[in-house]
């Protein structure tokens, strides 16, 4: 039953399946309808389900995301697409102040089956305003859940799970993953939406990553294996909640922890991972846990500088070796 599909196709099939399964599901966002979605995720759905269920919106992120909140309160299951996470800054009030808080502030009266999908990440020379990751902003909001699928299979599973959940969920995708391929088995049973996945077993060091950094980490682990270093790669799959048990169990075996993140390190997602696993596994660690993160810079347009700003496979390899060889920490 397994076939190779693009990440965007897995998302597309998930939307198709859920639109077909439940009349309360509808999709809205800029160019999701007639145009078929900026990254093809909604391709073909407008023709199949019509304009009320696949709604092209004006460029009004704050209000169309808020529209999703209102529709969810009235029993619908809206899936809002924000073209990129950078534009979601205009929708923060709807996501943070409304979606995450209304069920709570009402004393638990209202459902909030809202999904907000958007890509984040450094793509190809999109410059500073279109190259942000910003995961940490959505991690710091009690009442929100944040999933970060890194494979077509997870994209399929996690989007469907998100649509079926009655809680508000941000699905953070990645521009460069949309056109990556991977296996998809639509008949396979899904793990819980926020459970981490061990993508590669290893005994020497636990490498925690998510989204596009998982692929880089796996490639680095392959190279390190050729040098006799066995790295365990954990794909978090979710940034709120985080599957701490899977991470801690791994660190207790490997005694070393490295987090690879595409975002700037300062007050970032990696800081949370290192802090919590540091608290939980302090006496298991052989060396200080480390983060390999992006430079503390807005992403430059220049191709070489852009590439130099975010972690690379060779950067990961080098950092792991530094850690295991017990050299000086920078």
């Amino acid at each position: 039953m397994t076939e190779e599909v693009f990440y965007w196709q897995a998302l597309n099939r998930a939307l198709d399946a859920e639109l077909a399964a439940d009349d309360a599901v509808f999709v809205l966002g800029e160019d999701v309808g007639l145009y078929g979605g900026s990254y093809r995720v909604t391709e073909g759905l407008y023709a199949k389900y019509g304009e009320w269920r696949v709604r092209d919106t004006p460029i009004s992120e704050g209000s169309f995301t808020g529209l999703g909140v209102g529709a969810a309160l009235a029993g619908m299951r809206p899936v809002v697409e924000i073209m990129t996470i950078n534009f979601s800054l205009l929708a923060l009030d709807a996501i943070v102040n409304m979606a995450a808080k209304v069920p709570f502030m009402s004393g638990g009266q209202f459902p909030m089956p809202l999904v907000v999908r958007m890509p984040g990440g450094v793509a190809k020379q999109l410059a500073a305003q279109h190259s942000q990751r910003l995961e940490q902003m959505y991690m710091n909001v009690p009442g929100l859940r944040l999933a970060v699928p890194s494979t077509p299979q997870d994209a399929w599973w996690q989007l469907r799970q998100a649509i079926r959940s009655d809680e508000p969920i941000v699905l953070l995708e990645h521009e460069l993953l949309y056109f990556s391929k991977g296996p998809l088995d639509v008949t396979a049973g899904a793990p819980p939406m926020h459970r981490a996945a061990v993508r590669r077993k290893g005994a020497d060091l636990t490498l925690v990553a998510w989204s596009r950094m998982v692929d880089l980490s796996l490639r680095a682990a392959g190279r390190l294996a050729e040098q006799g270093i066995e790295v365990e790669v954990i794909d978090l799959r979710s940034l709120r909640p985080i599957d701490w048990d899977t991470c801690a169990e791994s660190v207790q075996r490997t005694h070393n922890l490295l987090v690879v993140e595409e975002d700037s390190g300062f007050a970032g997602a990696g800081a949370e991972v290192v802090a919590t696993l540091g608290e939980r596994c302090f006496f298991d660690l052989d060396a200080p846990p480390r983060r390999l993160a992006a430079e503390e810079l807005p992403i430059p347009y220049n191709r070489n500088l852009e590439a130099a700003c975010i972690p690379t496979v060779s950067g990961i390899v080098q950092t792991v070796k530094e850690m295991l060889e017990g050299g000086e920490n920078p």
Partner: protein
Amino acid sequence: MDQETRLQMLHDMLLARAFEERAAEEYTKGNIGGFLHLYPGEEAVAVGVLHAAEPSDYVVSTYREHVHAMVRGMPPGVVMAELFGKRDGCSRGMGGSMHLFDRERRFMGGYAIVGETYPVAIGIGYAIAMRKLPEAVICFFGDGAVNQGTFHESLNMAALWKLPVLFVCENNHYQIGTEIHRHSAVTEVYRRACAHRIPARKADGMDVFEVHQATRMALDQIRQDTGPYLLEFETYRFRGHSMADPGTYRPKVEVQAKEKEDPVAVAIAETLPGYPTAEQIAAAGTDSITRMTDTMNAGGHLPGDTLQRIEAQVAQEVEEAVAFAQASPEPTMEDARAALDCNRGMEVLI
């Protein structure tokens, strides 16, 4: 309008005033915390609008929403308990004054970020339109909220997709301390609606019957699937923006002049037999004469001690509301976590 409705509206006006004045008192005693935005002066808007709505309509309101909630049928005790932060409050003590919710009555919340009510309302409107239901959404906002981006964003979408939303501006002329001529280039809010081809009109927000009639007409039109409508009601709040605001930026003469247009007094007077006297006509101003005469002609609607009876009833309701709030237990941390996880169900996250 039948006599029963008229008396119920009068009751709601009187309850609104008495409840809010008591809330102010309880705030000064320390029983109510946080921000407390009171409604005296503006009662005719909530009462007039919501008596024109159907139980199946939805209401989205602002942080000055105690009266909207009560007119919608929420018991005063449940509202007062929420102001007290108690477990029997409508939001179980998690929301407070600015976040009253009642799913059963389709009271979709008090929203405390200015300009949030529009997107929530169009979202509910979208759900209604998509399912082709004969329902409408009433979206309250103040004059200060019309300069938020969501106003134009949401009005555009409401008009574009013909969503059944009644936008109701409670224009009390002040965004906290900034008078409307200092915050808006166009001070007639209803005129902004034409930018989005939304029919709109302005009415006297100090006259509950005019408010009611204007709302009835607007909702009738909305139920013809013609799309949204905007009503602007000019009104006035007698108090400051919140209990933290003494309102000293407003000239005393202005407040006094507006108090003469007290909507509660107008409503009482209009239902009194033998009203108005010549002096009252003069005091009310010429453009009110036709309106008052019409009401007088309907006359004889407040016989005997009806008014005193309602006043006494309202006083007792407020006493009972405070007693209910006082007797209600404090919510626990478990209640808070249950509220946050209310939509988890059987879902296993990890």
